[in-house]
Structures are given as C-alpha cells and as structure tokens.
C-alpha cells in the first residue's frame, strides 16, 4: 500500500469539504473493496477520508411506506434488522449473502453503491426495488444512479447519506455465485413494487440493468413460467473463464425464474 493522508471528519459537511480540497482524495466507508485495492497497489489515493465517525450516516429508519438506511450501515446490520426482515425480506436476504460473514461485518451500503462493482449485490436491490439514493446534495432515482462499470451519477464532492427503499408487494433476490470469488456471476432481483414490476440483474454485464421483457410478462402474470421463456441477448454480457456470455444469459433466465418462484 502506498502512503496517504488520513482524515476522520465528524460531519458530512466536513467530509465534503475535505473531499473538495484537491488531490486524489477518496472516501473510506467499510474499506472492504478500497483497502483491498490499496493493498494490491491498484488504488493509491493521496488522502483517505474515513466516514466511520459521522453519526448522520448510520442507522435504519422506517419512514412511511419505506425504509431508509444510512450509508454507513454494515451489511450485517441490514441482514439482521428486524424492520428490514419484516418489511423487505428480500433486501435483508441479499445483504446477508454479500461476501462472507466477516466482510458483512465491515462492508457498508454506501460504500458498495459508490463503488458500483459490476458483480456487487446491492445495485440489484437499489434498482430492482426502485430505491432513491439520498446524497448531501440531492435525491437520485435508482434508474439514474448506475452509469456503467464502477461509474455512478455521483459528482465530485457528493456523498451518499442514505438510501430509501420503498416496501415492495413482493420481492426476492437469487444469485449464482462465482465459485472462486463468491461475487455474483448473475444475481436477479425480481420485485412487484408500487411503481410496477421490476427485474434487476447484477453480475452479468458491465453494470446492473433491468429486463423490460421480463417485467412486462410478470406484470401480466406473476409466475415463474412467465419469465422461463424470456432470455436476454448474450451480446454485451460479461464473458470470462468462470462464465461465458452465453452461460450468463442462460443463468439470467434461471435466476429470474427462481426469484419469481421465491417471491410468490
């Protein structure tokens, strides 16, 4: 790891100020991706701004028809939250399946979203449940947030404060894990939400995406059979030694079918 300056602000405003001071500053949330990348010298920020001391970024709150989760909430806290388990079990289940138990005890919702790793789980939850990403500057709709591989709509100096998840009528997330890394090769979140049916796929492409044909079919009839015959084109999907694009395309259908089944 390269040397860097370290800051530990107590408020979002202070963190934003530190972030805008120039240099190659990065926010440190749980560090499960960032510290790992720095260790391998794949990332070498000049400044690290640790968000762990900022109280306003923590906590899970039930608000109206939804749940708002602070950006620094650990995956494990989401997974075992009584509120989340009661109202959006698919989200609790997804959080409980990220990485491994030790990673879940450190990794955070905000960190995962800001990083937007194409094989991460949370993007499927945010997009599939039609969540809203609340930053220190604005509210960003899920459909506008994910821009591409490791790219989001976040601007310089913008910090995720929390994410608001509307409670769906039903939803489930099923993933096919990479046997080695255990990240998603394909993860599908299927949900019937207040704003319609949504099917979000992570792991398969450069960034999370929705499958319109499946959403349409499920809107007509919520049944595993409705999606069983619908496949996504393999062109443009990820292809590597663990899974070819063709195999990933096939798995999208299988995982979608199983997610719908699980969300009965």
């Amino acid at each position, binding site marked *: *790891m*390269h*040397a*860097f*300056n*370290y800051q*530990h602000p107590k408020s979002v405003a202070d963190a934003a100020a530190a972030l805008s001071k120039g240099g190659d500053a990065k926010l*440190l949330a749980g*560090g*499960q991706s960032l*510290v*790992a990348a*720095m*260790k*391998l010298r794949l990332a070498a920020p000049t400044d*690290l701004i*640790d968000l*762990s001391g900022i109280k306003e970024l923590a906590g899970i709150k039930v608000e109206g028809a939804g749940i708002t989760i602070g950006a620094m909430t650990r995956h*494990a806290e989401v997974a*075992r939250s009584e509120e989340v388990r009661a109202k959006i079990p698919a989200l609790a289940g997804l959080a409980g399946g990220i*990485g*491994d*138990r*030790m*990673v879940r*005890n*450190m990794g955070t919702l905000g960190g995962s979203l800001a990083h937007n790793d194409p094989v991460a789980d949370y993007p499927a939850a945010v997009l599939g449940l039609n969540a809203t990403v609340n930053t220190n500057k604005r509210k960003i709709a899920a459909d506008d947030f994910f821009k591409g591989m490791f790219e989001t709509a976040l601007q310089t100096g913008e910090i995720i404060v929390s994410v608001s998840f509307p409670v769906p009528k039903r939803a489930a997330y099923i993933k096919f894990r990479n046997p080695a*890394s*255990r990240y998603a090769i394909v993860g599908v979140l299927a949900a019937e939400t207040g704003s319609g049916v949504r099917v979000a796929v992570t792991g398969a492409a450069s960034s999370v995406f929705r499958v319109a044909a499946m959403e349409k079919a499920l809107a007509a009839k919520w049944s595993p059979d409705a999606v069983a015959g619908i496949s996504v084109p393999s062109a443009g999907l990820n292809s590597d030694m663990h899974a070819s694009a063709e195999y990933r395309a096939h798995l999208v259908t299988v995982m979608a079918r199983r997610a719908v089944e699980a969300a009965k």
Partner: protein
Amino acid sequence: MKISMSVNGKPVSAEVETRTLLVTYIRDNLRLTGTHVGCDTGQCGACTIHMNGQAVKSCNILALQAEGADILTIEGLAKADGTLHPMQEAFREHHGLQCGFCTPGMVMSAVDLVNKHPNPSEETIRAELDGNLCRCTGYHNIVKAVKAASAKM
C-alpha cells in the same frame, strides 16, 4: 498517526504509519503473532479477529479504523488460567486442525458463527464458514468441532 485501542482487555497505543493494516499492527507492533496472513485479497480468513464483538478480517482493515475499538485475538480467547474456550477445546477434541495456520482465524470466525447462529445445522456451519479457507482438514472435522462447541457455548 497515534492509535489507541483495547486488545485482549489491555489498553494499547502506538504511533503508526497511516497505511498500517490492523493485522500488521497486531503482529508486528504488539507481537501477537497468532493472527495470520494467508492471502492478499481478503479471502482466506486466517487473519480473522473480533472487533467490538464482531468477526472481521484484520488484513482488510487499517489500524486507524480500529481506533478506540475492543479487539479480541486468538491469544485472548482462552481463560487467563489457560483453560481453552469451548470452541478451542472442540477443535482439539475433534481434530479440527492440522498445520494450525488457518486455525486462529477459523476459531475466531467459528465463535462469531455460533454467536450469531446458536444451534447451527451442518448446512449452516458449512455456508457460514465460506470466509475461511483450510487446505489441510477438508473441513470435515472443523464442521464437527463447531457443531460440538455450539452445544457448550
């Protein structure tokens, strides 16, 4: 920078480079060499310790992130008189270790596992041990040990 924390019930503090990993601080500064490093991608779990009561991978955390924390390492798990923790005892009883290298991380992870799943099935144990690699035992006896320990913890 200066860091302070509690390790195995004792307050410690030191001046460290910002880039010091928690595991490096534990092994090199505190000379608690029971916590091991088996990989550089956060997969093997040999470095697992407890931070504020939760199992974490100390190779994937900066020492600075543990400021003010309560840290428990394998050296602090047995009683002061040397009596093994039920999980350690179960690993011994069921031959849940061979070369011993993954063992401290495996045991710390297993204690956390049982804290979270008090009466785990074999399936739960196997699934929840996915953050710890062992190359010697084939996991068979580790699973047996965790199951046995869960009855005594």
